[in-house]
Every structure is written in structure tokens, then in C-alpha cells.
């Protein structure tokens, strides 16, 4: 009789643990997903700013078509990206084409004095900072999830109920390089 109670007790404890662990994984996964949607909001804002920027620059430097086309192409590529790593790559691409567009703008003093252009430049660099910030929050959450998925005994629950790793949003450039504002001097 006593042994039966002990066994029952152990089963109840294990069942409780499974429930708690399962809920923990759900919470971690949802938090990571929410963090991802934060990044998406910021990326969307960047996509919205770019056509305005292209129009403004066109008004002063219409013949620099290569720079515009690159930016526009990179923008549509970024908007079509699906997986996290595709997004990361496309965003990097977009950042570097934007950098060369701003480099082109350096040669046009009238453009550089345009308040609309300055405003767009400020908004874009702010958006890039926000992408960085939300990326770090996302990576933090994904890191927590990934660690929980790997650690024993949580990994048993994770594999049983199909909680898997999520991808980190990694930039290929170093964090320090990305910290620098978009600016090129000749």
C-alpha cells in the first residue's frame, strides 16, 4: 500500500513538472515570436522611408540611377525575405546600398542642405538603431529558448512536444561597425 502511494506521488510530481515545463516553453516561444514582430515593425518602417528618400535624392541627382536601382532592388529583396537568416542577409544588403546612396549624396551640396533629406537621413539612422535594439532583444529571447530546449531534462519535453531552436538574427558585420552612423567622407 505504501509503495503504491509513493509511486502515485512520484507520478503526480512528474506530471506536474511536465505541465510546468510545457508552459514554460510556450511562454519562451511566444516571447521570442513577439520580439520578432518588433523587428518586423522596424524593418517595415525602413521600407516605408526608402521610397521617399529615393524621390528626394532623384530631385537633385537624377543621373545617379545605379545607386537608386541598387537601393530599390535591395528593398524589394528584403521585403520578400522569408526566413530569419534571409532577412538578416537582405537587411545587411539594404544597409550597404543605403550607405552608398548617402555617399553619392555627399557630392551634392544642395541636396545635403535640403531639410527633407536631412530629416529622412535622421529617421533612417534612427530606424537602423531601432532594428539593432529589437534585434538584440530578439536574440536574447531566442538564446533563452535555445538554451532551455537543449538543457536536460527540459530537452525531453521539448523534443516530445516539438519545441525547436529558433534562428538568431545575426548581422555579418561586427556590432561595432553597425554602431557607426551611415556616413561616408571623401
Amino acid at each position, binding site marked *: 500500500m505504501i509503495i503504491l502511494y509513493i509511486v502515485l506521488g512520484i507520478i503526480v510530481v512528474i506530471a506536474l513538472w511536465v505541465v510546468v515545463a510545457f508552459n514554460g516553453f510556450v511562454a519562451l516561444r511566444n516571447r521570442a515570436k513577439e*520580439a520578432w514582430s*518588433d523587428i518586423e515593425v522596424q524593418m517595415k518602417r525602413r521600407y516605408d522611408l526608402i521610397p521617399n528618400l529615393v524621390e528626394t535624392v532623384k530631385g537633385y541627382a537624377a543621373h545617379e540611377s545605379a545607386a537608386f536601382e541598387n537601393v530599390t532592388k535591395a528593398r524589394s529583396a528584403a521585403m520578400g525575405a522569408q526566413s530569419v537568416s534571409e532577412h538578416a542577409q537582405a537587411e545587411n544588403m539594404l544597409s550597404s546600398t543605403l550607405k552608398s546612396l548617402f555617399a553619392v549624396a555627399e557630392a551634392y551640396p544642395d541636396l545635403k542642405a535640403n531639410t527633407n533629406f536631412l530629416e529622412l537621413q*535622421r529617421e533612417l539612422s*534612427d530606424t537602423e*538603431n*531601432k532594428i*539593432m*535594439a*529589437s534585434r*538584440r*532583444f530578439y536574440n*536574447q*529571447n531566442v538564446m533563452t529558448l535555445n538554451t532551455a530546449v537543449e538543457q536536460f531534462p527540459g530537452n525531453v519535453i521539448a523534443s516530445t512536444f516539438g519545441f525547436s531552436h529558433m534562428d538568431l538574427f545575426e548581422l555579418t558585420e561586427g*556590432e561595432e561597425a553597425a554602431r557607426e552612423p551611415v556616413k561616408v567622407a571623401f
Partner: protein
Amino acid sequence: MAGFLIVVIAVGYAVAWYYDSPAILYAAVGFSLFMNFTSYWFSDKIALSMTGAKPATREEFFDLYTVTENLAITAGMQMPKIYVINDPAPNAFATGRDEKHAVVVATTGLLAIMNRAELEGVIGHELSHIQNKDILLMTVAVVLAGFIAIIADIFLRMSYLGGDRDSDSKGNALFAVVAIVGIVLAPIAAQLIQLAISRRREYLADSSGALLTRYPEGLASALQKIGSYARPMQKANHATAHLFIGDPFGAKAGKFVNRLFATHPPVEDRIKRLLGTAPQ
């Protein structure tokens, strides 16, 4: 706040003793607890009106606004409300009982002399105060410091009554002396502990702020600038002093007694810890 609590209780005690009516003491205790609770619940509004802060718009204070926004995103917390005090002394504070009621306040002097990395350091420090729930912690510390004063008082009363019953005993006289020394020292000790907690939380907010920005040098150089600005703020006030990142009364000499009664650790120590050059 602890000072206020203890003073109210002490006055209540004196009046109660004079009129020989403990009810007055309990009323004083109740009143001071009520005041503390109010100050916790409305901490954001009270601090804002006491310091004369005005809301900061994104257009006017672009750097302050976006830096706060970005760090709030990184920390995964709600965007706090941002206010600005028109004062040339560089300083900042955060208050509010939870993330939803959080307020970050900076002086115009701070915005004028800090570059973006330094501003990030300061705001990171303030957001850490909010995330670490320091406002709640300090309120609890203040109330506990007050309760120690009450206990010391009860202790004295008990020995006083005991002395009445058996007045010729030498042991009781000694006991009374100990009790009197105790009632004088206990509130002071309680306040010292409360100040020590406040300083601890500053170190903690420094380090979690540095973790948030990943750039401790920014906060270190900001602290350097705040510390070397010797003039006090225009509206410096003891009630709000513990909230600020730097001492609103200006930099003071790091004498032992000053350090014991300061709400903030000395700037040099904070910089050393941030840059990892101090033995922990």
C-alpha cells in the same frame, strides 16, 4: 522619506508621552505610513511636480527620445514617459511604481553636455532602476526603517512600565539606559542601512545599465561629467535626492561621514567598478 517617517513618529511619540496617551503615537504612525504609501503610489506625479519637469516631445528632444525608445526596446520593456527639467546642472532620474507608470526625467544641462553614447549610459542606468523595481524596494526599505523606530519605542515603553513596578532594582535601571540608547540609535542605524541599500542599488543600476548598452565607457564618462559639475541643481531637495543619478546638491568631499549618509556612492568608485578596475 525615512527621515520624514521617523520625525513624524518621534513627534507623535513626544506628544503621546507628554499627554500620556499612546493613541496619538499610533495616529502619527498611521499618518506617516499613509504618506509613504501615497508617495509610492503617486511617486511619478509627485516627483514631477516637485522638480518642475515638462513632457519631452520627439521633435524637440530627438536624441533623448530615441535613445530612450531604443533602450526600452532592447530591454523589452514599455516605453517610459519622458520629461525634461530646465536646469543647467546635468542630472537625470527615474521613478514610478511599475513599468506602466515609469517616468524618465533628464535636465537640459545633461542633454547639452552629453554625447549620444554617454546619454545612452545615463538612460540605461535609469531604465535599470525601473526594471530592478528600485522604487518599490526603497519604499519598503523606508517603511521598514520606520518600523524599527516603532519597535525601539515599544521596547522603551515596556522597560518604562517594568521600572514602575520594581523601581529599586539596579538591573532595571541599567535596562532603561540600554533601552534609551537603543531608541536613539536604532532609527539612525535603520536609516544608515536604508542609505546603504540605496547605494547598493546605484551600483546595480550602473552595471545592469552597462549590460543594456554594452558600452560601460559611455556611462563612466557621463558620470565623470556629472561628478565634475560642482554646482547644485536649482531645485535640489532632500526628498527627491535619492532618485537622481548624481547628487543634486553638487559634488561633495568623499569623507567617511559624508559617504555614510550619502544616497549615492562616490563617482570615482562607480567609474572604477564600471571599467572593472576596482577590486570587488
